[in-house]
């Protein structure tokens, strides 16, 4: 899900950087500072999720949990994902510094979209909450995959080839993410329901 250094063109990198700065600024402004520790726990979860690999065909994919961050944090997912990706780039050499903006956008924007799509049903109990959280996890990976393909296309890599490659590899991951997000949200709703109200000021 991370694009490596040296793949994208400079205009794409610059555009991604600018959009990330804007999104992060809005995220910091809208962040609920009284629940910063809950936010940091979710950031830490996102940070270590990449270490969980799922072999798929010729390669392997890793958990992302961007959907979980998006539906629980809202706009605050921007600084959370940026922080986690920066630390991954520095400590794991995963992705890169120059491509940080693009990688952040590719994960945070779908996460944010899922927040707006799923939020109305998240606070409801039972099946609606489960379906909503599954949809959030699934859609987040699906949209991120599309954005990665679009990013590669803009950088003169064939869109169809990039879309096919990324979609094929991440299709199983979409379902896995949806299921994991559903279980995590259900668990949090039972034991720590305040996690579902992080975005409430």
């Amino acid at each position, binding site marked *: 899900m*991370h*694009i*490596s*250094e*040296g*793949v994208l063109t400079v205009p794409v990198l610059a555009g991604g950087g600018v959009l990330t700065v804007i999104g992060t600024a809005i995220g*910091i*402004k809208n962040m609920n*500072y*009284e629940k*910063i*520790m809950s*936010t*940091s726990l979710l*950031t*830490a979860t996102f*940070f*270590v999720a*990449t*270490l969980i*690999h799922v*072999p798929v*065909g*010729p*390669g*392997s*994919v*890793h958990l992302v949990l961007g959907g979980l961050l998006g539906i629980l944090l809202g706009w605050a997912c921007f600084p959370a994902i940026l*922080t*986690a990706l*920066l*630390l*991954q780039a*520095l*400590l*794991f*050499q*995963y992705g890169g510094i120059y491509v940080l903006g693009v990688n952040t956008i590719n994960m945070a924007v779908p996460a944010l979209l899922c927040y707006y799509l799923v939020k109305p049903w998240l606070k409801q109990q039972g099946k609606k909450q489960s379906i909503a959280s599954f949809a959030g996890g699934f859609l987040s990976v699906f949209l991120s995959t599309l954005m*990665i393909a679009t*990013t*590669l296309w803009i950088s003169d*890599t064939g869109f169809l*080839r*990039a879309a*096919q*490659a*990324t979609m094929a*590899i991440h299709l199983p991951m979409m379902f896995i993410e949806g299921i994991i997000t559903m279980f995590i949200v259900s668990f949090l709703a039972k034991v720590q329901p305040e996690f579902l109200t992080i975005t409430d000021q």
Partner: protein
Amino acid sequence: MKNSLFFLITAVIFIPGLPINSHAHKINVFAYVENQTIFCEAVFSGGRPAQKAPVQIMDTKTRATLATGKTDTNGHYNIAVSSIKNSRNSIEVIVQTDDGHRNSWTLAPKDYLDNTIHQPPHSGTEQNSPDAVPIKNIILGLFCIFSIAGGVHLLSSKKRKRQ
């Protein structure tokens, strides 16, 4: 408060001497020369071979493409040294998959122009096991995240008290 936040984030993250020696999900590339043939191995973390991944061999000085190809189902690619067109500079074996994963290995002239079998070249971008993820880097990352959160919480508490 927000200026302090940006400063705090920058100060905590860019702690001097952060160890950058770990490997997570990415493509690992290893190349060596044996019997006048350049062998390339491309593997994703977790050990799975990068199948049918595009390979490009490039002159590091002129940036000219010397050869192209694709890895096989085992993630291997090999090419005779004689196929590389008249290069006397270091060459870079680049593997880039369609989904944005990219990595490379550099071979010095003495590595591929000599007739003997060499030890793995020193200038590569990857070392040792591709699966190594030092626990200390994970702990350091978590420490950074919680430090930032703690700092932000402290600053926001102070601001609330002042108000």
